[in-house]
């Protein structure tokens, strides 16, 4: 096997695994059972989406989507903190 084929097939498997992890996180978002479970599912969803973009970058051999991964990491943090604050206080900015 060439280096090309090794990378292509194994990274495809890694992409499928991360996609499956995103699917499980989406299941948690939809079927809860409580609000904190849904927020935790969303946290997992964006994290695995970010890893998916990183693996896709390696598979494509270009850094085109690096900024996308970085922005998902940044905004996901802000979103989860805001939602946790909302669950605790009923308001985000008091």
């Amino acid at each position, binding site marked *: 096997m060439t280096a090309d084929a090794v990378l292509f097939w194994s990274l495809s498997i890694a992409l499928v*695994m991360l996609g499956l992890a995103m699917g499980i996180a989406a299941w948690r978002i939809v079927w809860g059972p409580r609000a904190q479970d849904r927020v935790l599912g969303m946290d997992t969803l964006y994290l695995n989406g970010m*890893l998916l973009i990183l693996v896709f970058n390696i598979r494509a051999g270009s850094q085109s989507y690096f900024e996308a991964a*970085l922005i998902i990491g940044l905004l996901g943090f802000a979103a989860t903190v805001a939602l946790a604050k909302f669950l605790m206080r009923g308001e985000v900015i008091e």
Partner: protein
Amino acid sequence: MTDAAQLPLWAAWVVTALALAGAGLSLVGAIGLLRLRRFYERVHAPTLGATLGMGLVVGASILFFSLLEGELVLRDGLIALFLTLTTPVTLILLARAAVFRDRTEGSEDVPADLHH
């Protein structure tokens, strides 16, 4: 595919092993999110992907692009640094919000209060 064919075969296998281990750990964390019974158990599971899984995938990316471009490319380290700083903050806030909600409702399933 791309010009990844320039990579030596051993490097392809190392990148592969790192990426697969990282993706596998993330999947294990997600399965934990699915199968564990209580919220306070579930909140631990995804951190497997957020710490070691993320570290391995970022390591694979750094190694791959460093070899491809012939110089040290540390851009992806930025993601690793940022996630390492933020993951504990987000999850402690979420866990505290869940504790607050459960205590307010008088639920039995709440960790003990250590301050009183």
